[in-house]
């Protein structure tokens, strides 16, 4: 033991990885050398105060290291960085700890999975959460596991739902106080969605909020007959938390079956909604439904960005939300009041929003057996790709797509554990025909400030920084930096495969680094 201490002292470095307390997570913005949670901070702005890499020198960014994930899936991981250690999740449900300065591994955890998984859209995992010295990870068999952050040993393994009934888990959990908040996927399998809180120490469930109300609960009457039992409304992207209001914010996914709404007439609460949830009780404080009775698979699975704005001379605790249905919304996050709304991408399905933010549907835009062309397509005006907000520019940066698809309707019977979608959509023209862009929106008005056009499109999340930069990627395999004020391109590098994740930035030994997963490789860039 004494020799170990001596060796560490001779290493001329401080040991890596100090425990991540709740206080550290509350003040994550104050330690920008780390990336402590999926969206960086509890308000999910994906804004870093680091400015060593900035508009003047970003063109000099060069590769520092690369880590090859030993799976040929497309990585969706957003790594965490804690005091020089990076935690990277891998497909299907694994995690590896590497040195954040070199990419060299400490340990790995391989989660054993059954062979009869029910997953709609790839063997994805988007990242871990951390509290103390424990990591929390969702797994494809709908479990939540706790892993020792120093060694990779399993601490507990909780079954969240039965994967054979169509549930899976892909999202990075969110730590709130001493709890792990975690959602489920399965909106294409006729699940009944929910959001859970688990005791971080024991893995015991603290509360569960069903995203579809049961009989006798308000909102259950927005589902025809028994359709609420198989109505979907999953919770497959990480939410946010406001410590002053003690509210957790989480988006919900599509109602099921996705494209055939005939058997589930009604608004289908709380599908396609923003939910505000009391962190201690799990009770719903308010909800805002973006797309009532959705028949186009436009999940409200976007990251709720919390920002304080001055709106018409009034200070507002706001929530910024560019939705898959192609409308941008600013809500009051204390009350759920609708403040601003307008399209940020091409849409043909609604004539507009009413004074309460409810869409006014355009006639003739529902899926049909023969197919009906509607904008946005299934992929949406945006999708789950993380947006970013800079308090310096006071702009929201969002990955936008002006596409369209032909939507089909078909009959489908529910059978447990089988896909339950009731239709689909297909392309009517090459993707190259449509416009894709990174757009900067003014959250006070929803107005477009600038856009940077992408060819053919992007499925990347974004990162904003105090260096007045916005980082993002493209499907054809670029990673780039834009001027946050003007959208001008300042740097790009070919990373060889689709960027289907979101960038992070952090520092090791005072050097700012930027990391992005592309294809199945995690790349890290720096100046020195």
């Amino acid at each position, binding site marked *: 033991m004494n020799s170990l201490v001596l060796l560490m002292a001779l290493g001329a470095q401080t040991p890596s990885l100090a425990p991540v307390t709740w206080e550290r997570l509350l003040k994550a913005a104050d330690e920008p050398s780390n990336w402590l949670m999926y969206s960086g901070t509890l308000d999910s702005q994906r804004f870093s105060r680091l400015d060593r890499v900035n508009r003047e020198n970003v063109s000099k960014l060069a590769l520092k290291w690369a880590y090859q994930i030993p799976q040929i*899936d497309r990585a969706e991981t957003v790594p965490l960085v804690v005091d020089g250690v990076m935690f990277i999740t891998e497909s299907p449900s694994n995690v590896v700890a590497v040195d954040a300065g070199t990419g060299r591994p400490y340990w790995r955890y391989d989660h054993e999975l059954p062979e*009869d*998984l029910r*997953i709609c859209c790839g063997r994805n995992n988007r990242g871990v959460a951390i509290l103390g010295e424990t990591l929390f990870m969702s797994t494809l068999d709908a479990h939540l596991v706790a892993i020792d952050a120093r060694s990779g040993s399993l601490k507990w393994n909780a079954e969240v739902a039965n994967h054979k009934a169509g549930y899976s888990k892909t999202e990075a959990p969110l730590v709130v106080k001493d709890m792990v908040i975690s959602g489920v996927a399965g909106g294409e399998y006729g699940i009944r969605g929910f959001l859970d809180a688990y005791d971080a120490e024991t893995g015991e469930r603290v509360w569960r909020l069903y995203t579809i109300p049961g009989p006798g609960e308000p909102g259950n009457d927005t589902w025809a007959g028994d359709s609420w039992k198989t109505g979907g409304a999953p919770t497959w992207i990480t939410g946010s938390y406001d410590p002053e209001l003690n509210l957790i914010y989480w988006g919900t996914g599509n109602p099921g079956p996705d494209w055939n709404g005939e058997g589930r007439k009604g608004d289908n609460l709380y599908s396609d909604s923003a939910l505000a949830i009391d962190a201690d009780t799990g009770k719903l404080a308010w909800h805002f439904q973006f797309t009532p009775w959705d028949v186009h698979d436009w999940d409200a699975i976007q990251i709720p960005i919390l920002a304080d704005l001055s709106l018409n001379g009034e200070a507002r605790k706001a929530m910024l939300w560019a939705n898959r249905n192609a409308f941008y919304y600013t809500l009051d996050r204390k009350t759920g009041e609708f403040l601003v709304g307008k399209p940020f991408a091409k849409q043909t399905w609604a004539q507009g929003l009413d004074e309460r933010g409810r869409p006014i549907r355009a006639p003739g835009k529902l899926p049909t057996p023969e197919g009906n062309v509607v904008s946005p397509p299934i*992929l949406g005006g945006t999708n789950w790709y993380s947006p970013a907000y800079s308090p310096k520019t006071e702009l929201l940066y969002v990955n936008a797509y002006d596409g369209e698809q032909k939507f089909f309707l078909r009959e489908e019977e529910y059978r447990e554990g089988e*896909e339950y*979608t009731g239709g689909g*959509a*297909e*392309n009517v023209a090459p993707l190259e025909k449509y416009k894709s862009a990174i757009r900067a929106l003014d959250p006070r008005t929803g107005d477009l400030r600038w856009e940077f056009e992408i060819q053919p499109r992007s499925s990347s999340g974004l990162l904003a920084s105090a260096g007045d930069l916005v980082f993002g990627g493209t499907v054809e395999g670029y990673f780039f930096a834009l001027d946050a004020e003007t959208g001008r391109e300042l740097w790009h590098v070919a990373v060889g495969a689709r960027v289907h994740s979101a960038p992070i930035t952090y520092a090791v030994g005072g050097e700012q680094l930027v990391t992005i997963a592309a294809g199945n490789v995690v790349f890290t860039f720096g100046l020195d």
Partner: protein
Amino acid sequence: MRPASLDTCLLLLGSLWIAHPSRAQEHAFNSKVDVEMGERVFLSECGRCHGPDAKGNDETDAPDLTRGRFKSATTDAGLFQVIRDGIPGTAMIGIGWAPETTVWQIVAYLKSLNVDPGDYVLPGSADRGRDLFYDKGNCIACHMVRGEGGRLGPDLSTVANRRKPEELKADLTHPDETVEPRWWTVKVTRPDGSVVEGLRMNEDTFTVRLMDARENLWHFSKGEVRSIERIETSTMPSAERTLTPGEVDDLVAYLFSLRKESGT
């Protein structure tokens, strides 16, 4: 309800076919009903990634299954295995929980998407069409067939595996209707005002690559040129202007003979 003995029988037959791929084409689930059942399950279980039209999906990178070629299987038995077991290490998961009959029906559906030459009696003569292709039509100047010909149009060596006769005829007579982005024209104006024009081999956010009429390859960074114009029409003239209707039929018959030879 099916008798248990039949299930057992099907199971054994399935195993036998996997063990002997040469007999794979003979599986028993090729009826119209099987194809319809296969389509129904495909739409439900596979359509989310591969698309309801089986033409693939950009978001999931699921491949197009309508081209008669599969990346991971060359026989029906191989297809059966991929559908049942998935492809380890990839996003392709199997439906091993489904009855084997269902898996065979999906195989039958996917095979039904291929163009079967036996389904067509064509009015034209492939021999005359071949002469047109090489002589009067001069198609060979731009299109390659089995290693011979030009590079300014798609390689047609196996075009019949992916296009039906009526589609081939439409391609010939109305070439501007469906032009794949690969065959659009790009006109690049350089800083000195000179222009390079050619077929759009590839384009992304920051660069474009093209082949000019002399088959030279060019690469441009978009930030370093004055302008880039995209022309989304075909460079091929309509056969309606250059050939008689009978000659068009002959050319279609020739093109429909260009298919992957069995065993290759």
